[in-house]
């Protein structure tokens, strides 16, 4: 889709600069107009990391660079970046200006690389695609231009139990830090060694260098990130297993872990199956102890709890939360809205996945990146009982208009602070429950 859109829930290609910020001690270097970095910082908020935000070097295109090209300026900025900032990896991202002017950033960056600098170039002019897609461009560029330099020291698929995890998009998934950490904990619990690549639980550039060693890759995403899995398969022969949405709560987390274990066994990973089963059992039991305690509240609280939900989110969250809320919380998903601009070729499989949620009910699903339009649809809907909306900060106003409960769980959201909270896994499900009913109970004064 490419028409006019209201209330964008994602940003443009250069937004993937945040994927660089998410790698410990990496720095994005922007070859772009002066406002690009500021726009991205404003979209995600509290997203500076080590050297993002106002710290990131930028050529700040002026009329002069538009007319005469900006390569000399970029050369100067990169040269001086090494003097001013202490960083392990530099990723040059281009904006619309450089893209239209046609600066040959790749050749310039190759010169620095030839001098032994850990530097990567990637073309991310805003008009090219959104940040869901450009995340893959950035990761693949780092693999080709940086990771590949260490291929000699990192034999391909040499560690049977090591995997690379391709899951949450840094910052676009507000819970990315917590989610990546929880995936890692769960997968290590069943006997794997996990390279999460982004965030404080990753080992920074050293971990990136070891990407080829992994036996296989795990992709947890309905569509975005797939180009990375395919690229690694092609480049290093690493197979991958894909789980099509975020696993929230016991049912889907268990299914996710079993899928990975089966895949690992087929790829000759050395897994202690009994220990893995024991780990899952303990996680499940701890989870149901809470749900047991909670059931009375969910069934008996007499002052009103939401009975149905509309979610406005990316495909992974919409499907994952719908399944979880229906089966493990008892909130019925009504019309659902995927606002991540999912390419058409993936839409059918996402519909099919959502359909598996229930044999007895149909959950209407709408793909619409124009979130203003989705809000208009929701304004026209009416279901019996108390409603819940899960979405971005924009939807708080909609919830108020409709007198629905509201949970802020998508970007952009100035109404919520997220640090290391996670929504994936067994305990992530419990956190979703806490957050929903905290919001509900807060309405009673």
């Amino acid at each position, binding site marked *: 889709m490419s028409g006019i859109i209201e209330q964008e829930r994602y940003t443009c290609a250069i937004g993937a600069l945040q994927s660089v910020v998410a790698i410990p001690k990496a720095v994005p270097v922007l070859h772009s107009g002066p406002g690009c970095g500021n726009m991205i910082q404003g979209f995600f908020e509290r997203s500076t990391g080590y050297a993002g935000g106002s710290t990131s070097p930028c050529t700040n295109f002026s009329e002069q660079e538009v007319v005469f090209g900006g390569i000399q300026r970029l050369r100067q900025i990169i040269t001086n970046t090494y003097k001013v900032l202490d960083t392990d990896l530099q990723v040059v991202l281009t904006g619309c200006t450089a893209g239209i002017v046609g600066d040959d950033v790749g050749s310039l960056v190759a010169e620095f690389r030839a001098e032994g600098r850990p530097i990567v170039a990637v073309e991310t002019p805003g008009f090219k695609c959104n940040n869901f897609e450009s995340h893959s461009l950035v990761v693949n560029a780092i693999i080709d231009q940086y990771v590949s330099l260490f291929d000699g020291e990192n034999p391909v698929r040499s560690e049977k139990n090591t995997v690379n995890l391709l899951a949450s998009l840094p910052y676009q998934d507000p819970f990315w830090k917590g989610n990546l950490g929880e995936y890692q904990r769960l997968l290590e619990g069943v006997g794997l060694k996990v390279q999460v690549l982004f965030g404080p639980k990753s080992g920074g550039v050293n971990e990136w260098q070891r990407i080829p060693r992994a036996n296989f890759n795990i992709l947890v995403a309905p569509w975005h990130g797939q180009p990375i899995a395919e690229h690694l398969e092609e480049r290093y022969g690493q197979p991958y297993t894909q789980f099509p949405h975020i696993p929230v709560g016991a049912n889907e987390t268990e299914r996710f872990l079993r899928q990975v274990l089966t895949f690992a066994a087929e790829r000759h990973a050395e897994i202690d199956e009994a220990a893995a089963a024991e780990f899952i059992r303990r996680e499940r039991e701890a989870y149901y102890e809470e749900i047991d305690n909670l059931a009375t509240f969910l069934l008996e609280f007499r002052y009103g709890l939401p009975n149905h939900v509309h979610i406005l989110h990316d495909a992974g969250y919409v499907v994952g939360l719908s399944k979880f809320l229906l089966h493990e919380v008892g909130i019925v998903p009504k019309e659902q809205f995927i606002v991540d601009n999912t390419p058409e070729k993936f839409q059918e499989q996402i519909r099919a996945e959502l359909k598996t949620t229930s044999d007895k009910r149909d959950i209407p699903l709408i793909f619409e990146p124009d979130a203003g339009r989705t809000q208009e649809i929701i304004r026209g809907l009416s279901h019996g009982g108390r409603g819940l909306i899960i979405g971005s900060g924009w939807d708080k*106003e909609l919830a108020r208009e409709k007198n629905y409960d509201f949970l802020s769980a998508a970007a952009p959201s100035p109404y919520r602070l997220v640090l290391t909270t996670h929504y994936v896994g067994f305990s992530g499900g419990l956190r979703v429950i806490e957050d929903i009913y905290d919001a509900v109970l807060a309405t009673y004064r």
Partner: protein
Amino acid sequence: MSHINLQIPDVSIREIRLNSITGFQGSATELVKGSRCGLKDKNRFFSQCLGCSVTQAACMVILVQDAAVISHGPVGCSSCFHEFAFTYRVNSPLRRVEQPTQRKIFSTNLQETDTVFGGSQKLAAGIREVYERTHPNAIFVLTTCAAGIIGDDVESVCNEAEEELQIPVVAIFCEGFRSKVWTTGFDASYHGIARKLIKPARARRTDVINVINFWGSDIFSEWFAAFGAKPNYITPYSTVESLTWSSEAAATVQACPTLGSYLGAALEQEFGVPEIKAAPPYGVAQTDRWFRALGEILHQEKQAEELIAAKKADYLPKIAALREKLKGKTAYVTAGAGHGHALLSILGELGLEVKGAALFHHDPLYDNGSEESDMLAQSVKDYGDVPNFNICNKQEFELVNTLHRLRPDLLLARHGGMTLWGSKLGIPSLLIGDEHFSMGYEGLLSYGERILETIENDEFVKNLEKHAVNPYTKWWLSQEPDTFLDGGACK
């Protein structure tokens, strides 16, 4: 005095119109002197993400109550606008807007093919769709780098739509690459508003005074009441109707001349609304001047003197007591130009020693050409010189370097992100977004109390200092702050 030309679609940028600069290292006195005989801008050989005109233009139109805004560009160019939707909602009680409506913010979402075949048709269709969906009283169209370089004729598209829809459709030319001075974005939105919304006065009113400002608290109602007048706030929380007839006000005052320079001059030159040239009321001396200027323009000199006397009797003793408590403390200021000058005056009045300042840009004189409006000149005259005066173009690396060497007792900042570095270095840091908070005699008191509180409650920054991560190299922190400025040590 700059010449306001409302006939042409795009505003003349500040570098050309006002000879504004973005790089300087010296003292405040040197800068003021240089401003009178021509300043030469300096380039940097290293630079960090800056911010562009689009954001400044956007905040001035998104907060107009009954308008819709279209960003003509890729989605990224409107990414931060949701923050203004938040601002609008959160600050609405301050302006007595009881039912704040959802902000109507759109992007034409330009794709690669549009950069080849042009985006004009998409914009034309978009304007009509926005009209159908929101029925606004005006539509503002913001241009972006991509739209500018591919050469879309935004002005014609808007004019055609305006004729068809019979509401103002205002093209605002604020492409990021056009100007190094991001405040040009304010001028761009005001230029569009002055061209397309403001109409010649039907009559001159004596009871309304325009206040060009951001979204701060409503302090002007009380002040103007003493003169039998009320404020017409421009442009946040205005309506298309109230903007249209801002031409009828008795006068225009600026909350921040860096912000309202262009519109104040346009209202005076094109619509006959006199602008109060006195710089805004920060610090006792300037507050005296400002109220006197207000009284003079309203022909109510007596009321002005009475108000000044009453307020001073009330506040000066309290300010004096505060000054005692702040004695011997040192401070550093980083902010946009106008408010930065205001903060210097406040610090001067409260008796703190200002060790330096990093302000984002400098306008030698504003559009009205009046030296009376030069807040920095006034501040230097009232409170003395400021050393280590840096025009930093929001370059964080220079700020960090300077703070690292000066180690003041307090950092005053305005604009997000800058207090981080004070705190990382263990320096108590204060940012107050509401530019009205520190105005007038009463503002000195409330601001001074916040300063005291900030200096006293330093446990958080002292703890953070011990654990803070610093990406800047030891080499950089040991160089002079102007090392990468033209004429400095490094190229």
